[in-house]
């Protein structure tokens, strides 16, 4: 850092530079959202597709058409079931596995943990066909549990929970043990309450990634009434040789991302605190 002599000056300048940089980054992040909003309310065929200026004659026609072109309430429910189902199972498996890797001593622990982490390096596309074969063999092809199954175990979640559990003082666990708490009670009453920020942070990452996932549900789901939102949205955003109606796409995208956006705005402070506390960015 800076030398003590230049202290007062840097203390004045650095925060404002940082604020400036952060504001710039925030602007870069906000532009696509702003464009989506502007485009969603612009009347079709006004010819100003790329413009960031809102239309003077805003319309809800794009929303009406997007809403009509897919069964959104049903897709909504499917996405919700998938995300909630995956998260519920993951929270259990990740915290149990995290506890094992953090606290239990057994031969080959380091090796097993390393093996677990290798999963993070694999490109998901490589696993499409093998996973689909397994799903079909289990009789889960074209079902929502089939979409959830490969995510029941999570390398990222296990890693995160292991790191957080290791920071919990051992003495607390020892004290509980003396009081006769079993392993289950120790995880539930000591580890989980103390690592809530990590759990919340992991939940956000898990839910957003599965909410936005496209390729895997595309592989598993055939029946139109089991599609999650991303597949429903894709039916009018993907076009190989046609022209894209930007207003319609923007309105559809807005509808799909709205629940997550709303959730984030409502719980914003909590989320940010969790990320800070857990050290993920």
């Amino acid at each position, binding site marked *: 850092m800076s030398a003590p002599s230049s202290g007062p000056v840097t203390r004045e300048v650095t925060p404002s530079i940082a604020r400036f940089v952060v504001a710039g980054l925030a602007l870069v992040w906000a532009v696509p959202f702003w464009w989506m909003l502007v485009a969603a309310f612009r009347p079709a065929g006004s010819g100003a597709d790329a413009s960031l200026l809102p239309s003077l004659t805003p319309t809800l026609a794009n929303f009406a058409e997007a809403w009509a072109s897919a069964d959104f309430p049903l897709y909504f429910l499917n996405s919700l079931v998938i995300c909630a189902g995956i998260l519920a199972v993951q929270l259990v498996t990740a915290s149990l596995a995290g506890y094992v890797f953090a606290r239990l001593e057994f031969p080959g622990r380091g090796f097993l943990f390393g093996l677990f982490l290798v999963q993070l390096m694999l490109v998901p596309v490589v696993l499409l066909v093998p996973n689909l074969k397994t799903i079909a063999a289990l009789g889960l*092809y074209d079902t929502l549990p089939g979409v959830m199954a490969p995510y029941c175990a999570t390398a990222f979640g296990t890693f995160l929970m292991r790191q957080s559990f290791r920071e919990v003082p051992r003495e607390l666990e020892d004290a509980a043990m003396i009081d006769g708490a079993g392993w289950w009670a120790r995880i539930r009453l000591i580890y989980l309450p103390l690592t809530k920020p990590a759990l919340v942070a992991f939940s956000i990452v898990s839910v957003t990634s599965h909410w936005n996932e496209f390729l895997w549900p595309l592989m598993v789901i055939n029946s139109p009434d089991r599609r999650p939102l991303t597949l429903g949205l894709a039916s009018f955003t993907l076009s190989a040789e*046609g022209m894209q109606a930007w207003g319609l796409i923007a309105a559809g995208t807005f509808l799909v991302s709205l629940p997550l956006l709303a959730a984030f705005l409502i719980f914003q402070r909590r989320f940010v605190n969790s990320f800070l506390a857990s050290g993920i960015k």
Partner: protein
Amino acid sequence: MISWWKGAALALVAAAGLAAPRAALATDIELFFPVPVDGALARNMSGLIKEFNDSHPDIKATPVFTGSYDDTLLKTRAAIKAGKPPAAVIMSANFLTDLSIEREIAPMDDLIAKEGKTSEAFMGQFFPALLPNAVIDRKVYGVPFHNSTPLLYINADHFREAGLDPDTPPRNWAELYDAARKLTKREGDRTTRWGLMMPSNYDYGGWILEALTMSNGGQYYNRDYGGEVYYDTPTMLGALTFWSDLVHKAKVHPAGEQKGPAVTGAFLAGQASMMIISTGSLTFIRDTAKFPFKVAFVPMNVRQAVPIGGASLVQPTGLSPEKRAAGWTLIQWLTSAEKSGWWSRATGYFAPNKAAYDLAEMKAFLEKNPDAKIAVDQLANAQPWFATYRTVPVRKAIEDELQAVLSGKRQPKEALTAAQKAADALMRPYVEDTALRLPGAE
């Protein structure tokens, strides 16, 4: 006394009894379909399948939307490997060669024979230009569903304003180059209107480059053998250099990768005066353009030639006889003159079934929309679409280089050498297994 749950159970049994006969008789099949055009057509497809189900009580077909052409290939392959092949797939016509080499799709000659027809007579219903992408090694692997060719679209107002005659659009490259220069508008260093735009994103770029190469007398690939492409050739060098010159020398075409929808968008907004894109966009352009526009054949340098595009219906291997038969019924229904013609009018794709153009509705439609007739007339110049072993990566090998040339990062000649090398490496396993498998080499 019957308690309420016994009553409910009885009602359930009765309902099951009513549903059972249909469930026992109907064969459940799935149709995988990509969305080649915008969302309204995905709904049209559902409507079409509903009509099929209503008129065929013994079959229950489910339309399964499967993303882009490339995603559809991925999903179909994964479903086959997982032992869940769909009974029919609308597959990009240039994937059939690769799928047949990998034995992932089955020939349909025996099904055609069962109808009492020869394969030649059955395929004779379709335009001859479509056959090389559907009949491979003399076996019928696909039935054309909807097809396209690249087409030149011009803004008639811009033409008149620049002193050009919109009734005689450019016929050759010299006229195209000249018109593009006259149509381009600049304010200082900034271009406010481009003379010409052509899409160069994945899938589209290779197709347009093929159109230019063929118009330059080239073949692009060996249409009788899946292990050869002609990337590093004079015809292709001429085509790529022409495109590169439009961008970097004449500056009448924007630099960098241009996505298909962006090209259409610029044309519709009056920011581009000419574009070369698929006939499949014709209906959309006609419905959306707020100015008079005209269409014309793709301008030539050596000869008039364009590749076909679009998709065919195929059947994966490994289907049960019942599903295969049901899928075949669906395929025949979808490719009949009547349905083919209806889909053509809804999308702008031309109807592959020639008989569709003898129907009264189609005649009336063409009378009203002469632009659609030009798209059909261009079929006389149509050539098969690029198809090899591992079509997608081999296609991307040239498309990556095309994008590099359009961004000014590569010279055309070195780009073609690199693309040829990459493509040859990709096709090597097949070549070693076929053309280079020689007696006495063990």
